């Protein structure tokens, strides 16, 4: 048994090494553009554009009003400047806010109707073979439901029926607005309110697609839910919105993966993800994010400003965020948990890798409101090249959060002499019974370790991949198996050319 496991993990790590070996140096693996025709909303942002998007989605009045209120609010807001990231001023009037693949205007009913171009795109994205089988409808393929978001419109939804049997709703958010308005009305915007922050408010006004998940009471979702987001149209901002509700005593694991084609204009991405866990429910949310980080001079990557928040609303509810962040030119992202229910718990496991000229300001917030709430944060930051990253973690306990406990471990690894890592912990307690622990380390990838590995036969790049994967091991182990393999490859790809 134990040995079986060792082999499995072994082959994952061997996979990492092969992953590096099979790649051309200095080339972004996913640098391509597919030529599926786009249907654009006119460039720029104004009330008419908001109305256009809402009309395209055939939305009810309450939804349009929600958007317009957010837009009005957004006009009065200022872009935040407190993060340790530096990017040219974004001209919000110089972007498109809606694009839909033309060929899917009528919405394919099954996989057979899916544009072969699109399937080709999935292939290039390196979506694991298993999931390609799922997409191809191979019999006996593993149960992974894929609600693929291609640019802004959902194109493929599989396994819907099987999910429906147990009452799980997994569909594009726009469809949920039509079919389950009572659920959407009840939960949308209750975790990330329309007024939350500059980027979230913008998202509220113009979001065009995303996923909706509802797990009914007592149901353990029979498969991992997975969504691949990617951007495809030149200069198109992406504003997904995801809403996941786990009703009492239910469980769901959701996977999100991203990658984007090479391009020379900066792309704005401002997604919002809201998770709601009711009594005794558990949500696992895993992300592997691999957006175009910019060219060798640091030009042209994706700007990723994301608001992800979970509300552990019920007693003994549980949410865990696991993320592997390797992409983007600029990342601004703090998946957070509001621990409202007594005995609820939140976890945050993160690997952030920056290379080249990438900048990342990420972290988490654990807000303890209920009694005996627990949180755990493990953050592994790897900086290489001329990149910079900041971990920003807030752990707070409300007066009523008696017996709140947190453990935070924050490790940074530096590769080379021109990169930086910063750790900014904020701790606020309003109850003397809270126990918060914080540990932080910073180390450098050592030449001695590299030489030791090379003396045993590993190439320099394989050695870096192995050492970095070792550094991240605690977090990689939290990922679902098929994601872990992909994540290890990403770790290797992201650090190409970082030594020597």
């Amino acid at each position, binding site marked *: 048994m134990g040995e079986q496991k060792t082999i499995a993990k*072994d082959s994952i790590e061997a996979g990492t090494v092969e992953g590096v070996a099979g790649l051309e140096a200095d080339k972004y693996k996913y640098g391509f553009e597919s030529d599926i025709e786009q249907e654009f909303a006119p460039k720029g942002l104004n009330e008419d554009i908001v109305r256009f998007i809402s009309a395209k989605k055939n939305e009810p009045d309450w939804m349009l009003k929600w958007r317009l209120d957010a837009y009005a609010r957004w006009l009065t807001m200022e872009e935040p400047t407190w993060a340790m990231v530096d990017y040219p001023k974004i001209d919000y009037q110089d972007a498109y806010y809606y694009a839909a693949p033309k060929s899917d205007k009528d919405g394919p009913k099954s996989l057979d109707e899916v544009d072969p171009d699109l399937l080709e795109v999935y292939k290039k994205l390196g979506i694991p073979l298993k999931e390609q089988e799922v997409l191809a409808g191979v019999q006996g393929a593993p149960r992974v439901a894929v609600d693929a978001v291609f640019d802004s419109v959902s194109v493929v939804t599989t396994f819907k029926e099987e999910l429906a049997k147990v009452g799980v709703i997994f569909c594009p958010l726009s469809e949920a607005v039509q079919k389950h308005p009572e659920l959407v009305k009840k939960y949308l915007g209750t975790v990330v309110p329309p007024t939350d922050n500059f980027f979230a408010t913008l998202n509220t006004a113009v979001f065009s697609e995303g996923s909706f998940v509802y797990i009914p009471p007592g149901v353990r979702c029979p498969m991992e839910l997975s969504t691949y987001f990617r951007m495809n149209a030149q200069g198109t901002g992406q504003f997904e919105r995801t809403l996941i509700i786990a009703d009492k005593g239910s469980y769901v694991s959701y996977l999100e993966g991203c990658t984007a084609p090479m391009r020379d204009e900066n792309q704005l991405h401002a997604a919002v993800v809201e998770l709601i866990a009711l009594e005794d429910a558990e949500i696992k949310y895993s992300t592997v994010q691999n957006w175009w980080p910019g060219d060798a001079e640091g030009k042209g990557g994706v700007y990723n400003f994301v608001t992800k928040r979970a509300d552990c609303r019920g007693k003994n509810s549980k949410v865990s965020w696991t993320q592997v962040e390797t992409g983007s030119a600029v990342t601004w992202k703090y998946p957070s948990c509001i621990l409202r229910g007594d005995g609820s718990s939140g976890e945050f496991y993160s690997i952030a890798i920056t290379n080249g000229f990438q900048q990342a300001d990420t972290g988490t917030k654990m807000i303890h409101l209920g009694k005996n709430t627990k949180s755990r944060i493990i953050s592994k930051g790897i900086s290489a090249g001329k990149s910079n990253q900041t971990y920003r973690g807030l752990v707070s306990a409300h007066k009523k959060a008696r017996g709140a406990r947190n453990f935070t471990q924050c490790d940074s690894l530096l590769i080379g002499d021109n990169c930086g890592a910063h750790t900014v912990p904020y701790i606020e307690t309003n109850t003397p019974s809270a126990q918060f622990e914080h540990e932080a380390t910073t180390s450098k990838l050592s030449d001695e370790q590299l*030489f030791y590995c090379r*003396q*045993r036969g590993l190439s320099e790049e394989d050695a870096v991949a192995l050492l970095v994967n*070792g550094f991240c091991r605690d977090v990689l182990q939290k990922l679902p198996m098929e994601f872990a393999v992909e994540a290890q490859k990403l770790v290797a790809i992201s650090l190409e050319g970082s030594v020597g």
Partner: protein
Amino acid sequence: MIKIKNLTATVNDGQQTILNGLTLEVPAGEVHAIMGPNGAGKSTLSYVLTGKDGYDVTDGSVEYLGQDLLDMEPEERAAAGLFLSFQYPLEIPGVPTMTFLRTALNAQLKARGADEMSAPEFLKKARNVAKELKIKPDMLKRSLNVGFSGGEKKRMEIFQMMMLEPKFIIMDETDSGLDVDALRIVADGVNALRSPERGMLVITHYQRLLDYIVPDRVHVLADGKIVASGDADFAKLLEKEGYDKYAA
């Protein structure tokens, strides 16, 4: 099998010369011991032969199995069968010993154009070698060398050596940190690898190890070169007399 001629190596942009015209030849099938005072350059010799950064070879040559060794990358030297048992083995956090070793072995096999070893075959071999060296299987699942005692680290070096089956082995003070029992176990492992195709360079401070691994030749390294050589009995004499007369 290895021919070192007039090897001269410096550090700090040539400000300090550590190896100073070292000449030594180890034919296949032989075990040569290198003894010498602290700071003589013994570890430096092992690093220059295995290709560690930070040393400038300013003169001399090393021929290994007909190849120009100094022209090869460290991993190419490893794939060509060169193995160093480190004086101070490194810790590799988060990487289990088995994972590390399997990755290394497969990288070497691949570089030689051979097939990878299957996981079950690898496991079986590891289990047998671990047994020979009295290493608990549990230890192989732990991160390589992390939290191991000095002696355990040395034993793990020999474990790696026996798994990788190198052609030319350099052992740098493998005996230090080992108690008598462990020394015997390690020596048995090393002796089992002795063969007509294999060469060994055993760097040691103490004659003790050479009672177990009996060398064909013993050399004294002082001031960056070989200053005296003899047979196995020469080691006993050295132990008695010390290195004073060889030091500058």
